């Protein structure tokens, strides 16, 4: 059966695409993954790979023409099929799209055999019989508040794929289905997830490479000196989409506190000196921080929660993620149930997860579903920064560099302290300022006087 070829979202922010060039002409055979045309998006010119198989029966949007996401641009089927109703429906949809976009219809004449439908009474009568298929004006697709178009008829996804996408916050429109007729199936979601770098500690983007070293790798910003369009990887798209969603939907506010990291670092030195060498290396400061965070979350469980629209989900476990920079993005491996684990165990699990993160071997369940996230740019020399919340959690802790500062002690003398700036980003829908402040103060006390918490 003939099917419409729809304009896909070839960039996460694209709403309208322009056909730059058709690689196939009417009558050509089209196989799955064949590049049928090039589409200029708001960002770049992308190759459009077919998800349909058959013969290209009709090009609906000529070169230079525009189509909104979800609008038909061509019809693929078996040669000789009657596709008049598909063409007609597409034509009307295109008109409404053009009107909606405020754009002029393409200057190119429509193909000769596509006649204005009103000129043919027989077809008009048929339209009345089947308003759902060829109604004069298709009903507008419901438009959720986040501006992402609701799933229209053109999008096919298995129930499992829809569920996974919902859980992971993936916009199905940004994916290309590998199933029959372009159906998005489990493996497509898994592929997208593999490409995901966690968006949690967005502030860490770009920490690697020349910016830190201080010496640019090349003489100019680009080798040629000209602007370059860099295609966006699937992973980068998902980072971009999910970060934007978090930043624009969760009202962020930031709390900053200075912490004396001395006791923690002393405790760490003592622990590392005592640990047998074969025990798996030195325990990292991150393991201490994650443990302290978990203990503070026990005191303030309302921070260990998620905004769910109608309800607030308070998590039963404390699953803390740590943002890890990768060459092409970043990812947030999760240490599960930190509330019931000791510092050494957290450290061992963390080391395994970081190893996997750096070699791109994390499974989706190892980097998703964190209830709280820690992002540390201390090793990169950053004194303090703010991070974007990593859903489904409602708070993220940005950890700065431990550095020595002069302080006035209680007796008036001047001393030296190892200071660390902590910045907590909170989702105000879930965590009010007073609660966020109390949590952060508790965390500070936990780090500075850990023994107090054993009383």
């Amino acid at each position, binding site marked *: 059966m003939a099917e419409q070829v729809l304009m896909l979202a070839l960039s996460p922010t694209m709403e309208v695409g322009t056909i730059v060039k058709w690689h196939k002409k009417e009558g050509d055979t089209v196989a799955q993954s064949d590049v049928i045309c090039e589409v200029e998006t708001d960002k770049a010119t992308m190759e459009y790979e077919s998800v349909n198989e058959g013969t290209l029966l009709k090009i609906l949007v000529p070169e230079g023409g525009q189509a909104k996401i979800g609008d038909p641009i061509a019809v693929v089927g078996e040669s000789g099929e009657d596709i008049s109703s598909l063409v007609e429906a597409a034509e009307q949809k295109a008109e409404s799209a053009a009107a909606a976009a405020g754009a002029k219809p393409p200057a190119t004449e429509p193909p000769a055999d596509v006649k204005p439908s009103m000129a043919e009474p027989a077809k008009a009568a048929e339209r009345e019989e089947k308003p759902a298929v060829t109604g004069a004006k298709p009903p507008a697709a419901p438009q959720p508040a986040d501006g992402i178009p609701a799933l229209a008829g053109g999008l096919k996804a298995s129930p499992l794929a829809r569920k996974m996408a919902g859980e992971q916050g993936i916009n199905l429109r940004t994916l290309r289905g590998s199933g*029959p007729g372009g159906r998005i199936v*489990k493996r497509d979601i898994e592929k997208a997830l593999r490409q995901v770098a966690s968006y949690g500690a967005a502030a860490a983007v770009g920490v690697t490479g020349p910016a830190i070293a201080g010496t640019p790798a090349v003489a100019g910003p680009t080798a040629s000196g000209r602007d370059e369009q860099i295609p966006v990887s699937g992973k980068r798209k998902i980072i971009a989409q999910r970060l934007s969603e978090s930043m624009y939907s969760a009202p962020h506010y930031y709390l900053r506190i200075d912490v004396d990291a001395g006791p923690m670092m002393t405790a760490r030195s003592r622990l590392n000196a005592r640990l047998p060498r074969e025990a798996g290396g030195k325990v990292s400061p991150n393991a201490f921080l994650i443990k302290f965070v978990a203990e503070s979350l026990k005191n303030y469980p309302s921070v260990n929660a998620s905004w769910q629209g109608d309800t607030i989900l308070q998590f039963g476990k404390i699953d803390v993620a740590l943002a890890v920079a990768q060459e092409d993005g970043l990812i947030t491996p999760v240490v599960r149930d930190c509330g019931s684990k000791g510092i050494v165990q957290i450290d061992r699990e963390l080391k395994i997860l970081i190893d996997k993160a750096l070699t791109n071997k994390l499974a989706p369940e190892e980097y998703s579903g964190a209830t709280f996230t820690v992002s540390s740019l201390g090793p990169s020399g950053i004194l303090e920064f703010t991070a974007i919340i990593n859903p489904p959690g409602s708070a993220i802790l940005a950890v700065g560099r431990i550095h020595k500062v002069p302080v006035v002690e209680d007796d008036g003398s001047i001393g030296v302290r190892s200071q660390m700036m902590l910045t907590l980003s909170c989702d105000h829908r879930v965590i009010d300022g007073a609660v966020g402040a109390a949590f952060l103060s508790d965390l500070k006390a936990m780090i500075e006087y850990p023994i107090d918490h054993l009383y």
Partner: protein
Amino acid sequence: MPVIAFRQALKDAMDEEMARDENVILIGEEVAQYNGAYKVSQGLLDKYGPERVIDTPITEEGFTGVGIGAALVGLRPIVEWMTLNFSAQAFDQVLNNAAKMQHMSGGQLRVPVVFRGPNGPAEFLSSQHSQSFQAFYSHIPGIKVVAPSTPYDAKGMLKSAIRDDNPVVFLESELMYAWKGEVPEEEYLVPLGKAEIRRAGEEVTLISFSKPMQMVLEAAQALEKEGYSAEVIDLRSLRPLDEQAVYESVRKSNRCVVIDNDWPVAGFASYLGWLISRNCFDSLDAPVELVTMEDVPTPYNHAMELAMQPSVEKVMNAAKRVMYVTQ
């Protein structure tokens, strides 16, 4: 552990239950003097005598009714149908008497009868003698329907069926009678209503029962060679049905093929496919596939007879379809 044939396992089950309970009797065409049309009741006449192992005329409606009546007054009859095809003659007895008496008597009457015999196509028997009855009998509330695939289950489930206070339709297969398997010497029972995972796997769940099980296991092995991991579930019992075992597997694998050597329309596989679609909807990555007989009477021509039934190749293809493997 001794390895014995399916027919021997059935005989041993009847033998043990007849020795255990004098109310257990066997009745049917050629069950006594001829030792069973398929030699399933070998030696039982000699051991228990003509009062408990009873040859009947070729009158399915009559002797099925006698079995039901005997059950109503306290015996535990095993009614052997020479094949399920002939049980069509006795369908009214099963549908309106066996399945309804407990209900219509407000629970005062029980019908502890077992109807057993070979079901489904054998070979070269043409359309009238090659039919599958699982859908007909599973359709009826008030009876249990079971269909083991191994000698071990055949023995353990037949013993459970004989002891069950409900009418039980016990489905066998002519071609399975010679199948061999390990059966322990000590007594055991296999409960009715529990499925068995025959093979653990990850990527697709293959569900079947009775004779097709061997073919399905073969398909799973062939899939493994090609790098796909299939879980194989033997339902063993259609009524009651172990839904949880099915759902747990499908929720894990996200894909499912039901194999039923019966017609597709209004068949047991169709019903199971709907149950899975409804209860595992959000876990499914592809529509549930069915591999059944073609929707035609079984041809006599052997090539066509085989072609209209499920095969290893058809099962593999269906599994690949739900896994979206390009073929």
